[in-house]
């Protein structure tokens, strides 16, 4: 089964569409040249006119050279002919199949000129070619009318047919780079600008390809772009417009400030603690978004505990923190948190998601070994480059060296290649397994060159149980290759955009890969980790989704991401240091309360974004607040959800609240969307109700101890929400409860309802 299909299926199960369109592109050169108004720029040069049929002496006419590869294919792409829903589909349409967006010109040439009995072109009377008659609807065409006779696409195709249909050749000039003008610009809502696109070819030719390029806006709420390249600013914010032509992709950014009147000193007076704040405030100033104030101590401690360690602070911890008079008590709190076992549990769980630790493909001992290997490194704060280097080059017995289980989970080089690039480079190569990536620069050759780096892993299973994922030994083999499906040949092993291994090299391919991956020239590796960690604390990556770091998906604050990447590399890939830097920034400590002018901001960090807690954190918090632990089959009572090494441990609650299946490396595996079953389960399900009614639970214990209603309310608020109730809240709740003097059983029922109300409240279920 194809990877893309299984990926789709896996993610569909979780009700989520994968937002996985990776990117990368030929060098982008964007020159700042926004002109004053209107759509002034370079009008595409009109195509050469169709040669009139003046005489039947064709040799006399000068035939403009028409290149199949650089002219005909771009026309088919621009007009949508070779798109996925049309003839670019695997099976084509109505018997006519082209390669998706023209990635294989030789195959397309055959399809147009030769296949189906050559019915599609008529070189003797070019105008009678179906290639022209269908898209102009001179004959019925399921795809409708794509262009008019005499239009640019028509003329290109007609001239090509009339020129005798010159075939593609290995010597065709290659696209070297694309240039978009104008470059980055700050505009106002309602402004329009026309983009010009210039293509530079390997033979030195420079062509205006504005009319043949395709345009896409990364965020239609900020800017839209039509197929002529006219950009219209639709709302405040910042986004990128990507331009693609042949295999090239280029990007230009546009932004429009919010219509706010913000005093200049707002940004100067706003607190700055480290480099993060400089970049965040610069972006907010650029977009005229006012920052919210700093969160109060109650909100901060709860937020910090949940984001960094997935636990709630106890009442005692909150009270101690509040009582600390030291001005840097927040930094001190962060340091204490980062030293806790729960911090290690939390990040081990996160990286286990990333590495797909699961009993789906591993035996119990292997799950444990892999988990312990990860946990050991998180506890030791092993530099990220060393951690991944060890993983990539792992050899040995799977129960001795836990990292080797990565090669037990992925049993073929293409699966590893895809999940590995997704995990550590934020790139989706999957498309390129079957064809050149339609939107990005990755070709099928790149894919199989990369996959071949994983071709020499040998696995020797030990006959100790005969089950899946039992003890095995992973070694590097001396031979083995992955073969390119079209050519049937092995591509030289080559990191993405890296130098291929020399043919005679006997170096372990995985070592070569790991050196490149963690080497100084590969910033993408650090960038990906920084973005993942940022996403954990801000609810959204600087690049969103958090593992979609293709070049056409721009960061919301590129200078910040770059600065953090540099900082992270210079710190020696210190993950804990990065977390500390983030948590101590004023940006992270901002209130979640919007202020006038920043309500619409969801990505520039003018306030803390509220978000639902992850499934495991909610379940653990239920246990923590009520004092009634969860019991997972096969694990000792008291094991928290975030301590589970495996996501296949049965739990209806965790499944309903969207824990990841760990089938495919994808941020979309974890589902954070609200669903009806979630609501029904919190209302009727036993996860929460059993805890509230338990005799050993918080409510029962407080009632049995003779505590007053007011005390119970206080205790619930402090433990669940890290704050005392307000006077108004206390008053209203007391009025609703049976008096302290009432029958204890009756009191208990009322207080259980109170507990239910608090533990299902938005304030509890969300981080804020």
């Amino acid at each position, binding site marked *: 089964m194809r990877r893309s299909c299984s990926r789709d299926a896996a993610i569909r199960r979780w009700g989520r569409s994968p937002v996985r369109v990776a990117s990368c592109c030929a060098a982008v050169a964007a020159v700042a040249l926004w002109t004053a108004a209107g759509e002034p720029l370079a009008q595409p040069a009109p195509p050469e006119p169709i040669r009139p049929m003046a005489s039947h002496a064709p040799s006399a006419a000068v035939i403009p050279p028409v290149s199949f590869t650089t002219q005909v294919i771009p026309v088919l792409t621009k007009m949508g002919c070779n798109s996925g829903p049309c003839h670019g589909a695997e099976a084509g349409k109505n018997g006519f199949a082209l390669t998706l967006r023209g990635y294989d010109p030789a195959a397309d040439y055959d399809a147009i000129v*030769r296949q*189906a009995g050559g019915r599609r072109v008529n070189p*003797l*009377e070019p105008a*009678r070619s*179906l290639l022209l*008659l269908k898209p102009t609807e001179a*004959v019925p065409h399921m795809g409708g009318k794509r262009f008019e006779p005499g239009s640019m696409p028509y003329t290109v195709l007609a001239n090509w047919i*009339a020129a005798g249909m010159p075939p593609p050749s290995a010597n065709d000039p290659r696209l070297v780079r694309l240039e978009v003008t104008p470059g980055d610009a700050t505009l106002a809502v309602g402004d329009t600008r026309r983009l010009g696109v210039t293509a530079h070819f390997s033979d030195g030719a420079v062509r205006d390809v504005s009319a043949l390029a395709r345009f896409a806006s990364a965020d239609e709420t900020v800017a839209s772009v039509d197929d002529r390249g006219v950009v219209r600013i639709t709302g405040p914010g910042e986004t990128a417009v990507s331009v693609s032509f042949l295999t090239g992709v280029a990007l230009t950014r546009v932004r429009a400030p919010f219509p706010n009147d913000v005093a200049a000193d707002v940004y100067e007076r706003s607190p700055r603690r480290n480099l993060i704040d400089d970049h965040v405030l610069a972006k907010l100033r650029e977009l005229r978004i006012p920052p919210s104030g700093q969160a109060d101590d109650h909100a901060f401690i709860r937020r910090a505990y949940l984001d960094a360690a997935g636990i709630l602070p106890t009442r005692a911890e909150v009270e101690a923190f509040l009582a600390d008079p030291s001005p840097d008590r927040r930094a001190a709190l962060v340091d204490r948190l980062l030293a806790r076992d729960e911090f290690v549990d939390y990040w081990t769980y996160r990286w286990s998601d990333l590495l797909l630790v699961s009993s789906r493909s591993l035996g119990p001992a292997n799950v444990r070994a892999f988990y312990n290997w990860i946990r050991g490194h998180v506890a030791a704060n092993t530099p990220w480059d060393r951690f991944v280097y060890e993983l990539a080059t792992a050899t040995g017995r799977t129960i001795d060296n836990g990292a080797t289980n990565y090669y037990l989970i992925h049993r073929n080089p293409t699966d590893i290649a895809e999940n590995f690039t997704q995990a550590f480079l934020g790139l989706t190569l999957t498309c390129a397994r079957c064809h050149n990536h339609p939107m990005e620069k990755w070709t099928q050759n790149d894919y199989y060159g990369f996959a071949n780096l994983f071709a020499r892993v040998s696995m020797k299973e030990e006959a100790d149980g005969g089950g899946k994922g039992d003890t095995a030994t992973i070694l590097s083999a001396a031979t083995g290759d992955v073969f390119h499906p079209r050519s049937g040949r092995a591509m030289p092993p080559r990191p993405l955009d890296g130098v291929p291994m020399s043919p005679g090299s006997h170096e372990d391919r995985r070592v070569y890969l790991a050196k490149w991956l963690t080497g100084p020239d590969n910033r993408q590796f650090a960038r990906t980790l920084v973005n993942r960690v940022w996403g954990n604390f801000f609810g959204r990556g600087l690049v969103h989704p958090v593992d979609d770091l293709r070049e056409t998906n721009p960061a919301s604050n590129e200078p910040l991401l770059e600065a953090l990447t540099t900082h992270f590399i210079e710190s020696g890939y210190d993950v804990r240091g990065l977390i500390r830097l983030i948590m101590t920034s004023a940006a992270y400590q901002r209130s979640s309360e919007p202020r006038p002018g920043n309500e619409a901001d969801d990505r520039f960090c003018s306030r803390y974004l509220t978000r639902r807690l992850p499934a495991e954190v909610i379940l653990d918090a239920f246990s923590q607040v009520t004092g009634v632990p969860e019991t997972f089959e096969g694990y000792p009572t008291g094991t928290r959800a975030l301590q589970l090494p495996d996501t296949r441990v049965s739990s209806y609650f965790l499944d309903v609240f969207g824990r990841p299946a760990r089938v495919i490396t994808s941020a979309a595996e974890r589902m954070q969307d609200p669903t009806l079953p979630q609501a029904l389960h919190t209302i009727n399900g036993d996860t929460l109700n059993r805890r509230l009614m338990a005799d050993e639970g918080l409510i029962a214990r407080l009632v049995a101890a003779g505590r007053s209603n007011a005390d119970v309310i206080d205790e619930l608020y402090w433990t669940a929400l890290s704050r005392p109730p307000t006077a108004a809240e206390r008053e209203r709740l007391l009025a609703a409860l049976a008096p302290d003097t009432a029958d204890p059983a009756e009191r208990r029922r009322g207080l259980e309802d109170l507990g239910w109300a608090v533990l299902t409240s938005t304030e509890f279920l969300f981080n804020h």
Partner: protein
Amino acid sequence: MRRLIIVAVLGGAAVTTGAAQPPAAPAAPPDFARDVVPVIESQCLRCHNTAKSEGGLLLETYEDMMRGGDTGPPIVPGEPDRSPLVLQVEGRAKPKMPPKKTLSADEMAILRAWVAAGARYSPPRLPHPDGRLPAIAPAPVSPRVTAIAWRPDGRELVFGGYKELRRMAMPDGSLQPGWSGPSDLVRSVAWSADGRLVAAAGGPPGFFGEIVLYDAATGDVRARLEGHRDYVYDVAFNHDASRLASCGYDRQIRIRDVASGRTIGVLREHTEAVYAVAFNSDGTLLASASADRSVKIWDVETGARLYTITDPTGGVLTLAFRPGTSELAAGGNDRRIRIWRVSREGAEPLHSIPAHDGAVLRLAYSPDGSMLASSGADRRVRLWDAARGQPARLLPSQSDWPLGLAFSPDGRQIAVGRQDGTVSVYDAGTGELAADLVSPHARRPAGVVRR
């Protein structure tokens, strides 16, 4: 949008032409092509088409319409009150047609008046591109040679041209005046076994398919057979030239009575283009090859499908019966030649040969059945020992896709026509080139056959 195409049979007998009709006076009865066709197209064709054919009734051609479906002819010329089609659309017979809507009074009146006036045919207004297209001068290219056939006495070769059938006297290779008639590229040619008829099939792709039937002695057009709704890919005579089978991009196979030109069967089970048809040696079975990856075997007499062979893993582009045997060879996109022994009951696989490094384009048996020639998209022509399925010879590499492939009647030569318009003849015994008969960009023969 479906279009109705009208069958015209010229020179043959059956159907009258509209030419004899007087100019339409205001009170003149409705004209078939002008008035009736639009009603049928808009109201009836959605169900009574090749794909659906409700009640076995096809209304795509005049011929189909008059023949009728499961319950017999729907029209009795001159007698609207005995014509089920008229009565059913008027709601005077059951079931009412169309089932869920009602024709306008004008539309009903047209049908009634047309039937009353004799339900006459009028010549088709074939959708045709000429005159509506911008003129674009072509590069100097030769028409591709997609089909080639020897006269049974071996003294002439015909091959496909553009709007003509090209002819060459053999063995000297001198080009003879072409026969006009086809309105577009000739995709397939066939001689009847008795040498008296030549069929040239093709048509303007996307518009309609056509077969031009020539008197081989005079070059006169005996009939122009239209009915296919798109490009015709292949045409074949049966052993005694009483039947003619054709197939095309419209997924149909049509079996016709050669004498009258009438269609006696429309076989509509393939789900994609049908590329090739062939009769077995006694003319009882018809085999068809389709892009739908199947070969189907049909009973010629009843038009019933006997069975489907689904071994091929790619579209099937060509097939041939081995003379004097019940062996059928087929080839296509899966690059294999597959050979079965076929009977009415079923097909027994004999060989599956990886034959080419590219699609198998054409298969041809030598007249004595000893050799099989195959041509491929790898620009190769190979000869095989037909009985054993073993490679025998490889011909020199070809300048473009070899699409036309035919053994001379004495089995000593093989003619090859190519996508680039060239034609060559090879010695079947040695595999060596005997002569290049048509060179690139030349409409003249480039050489003569060396003997």
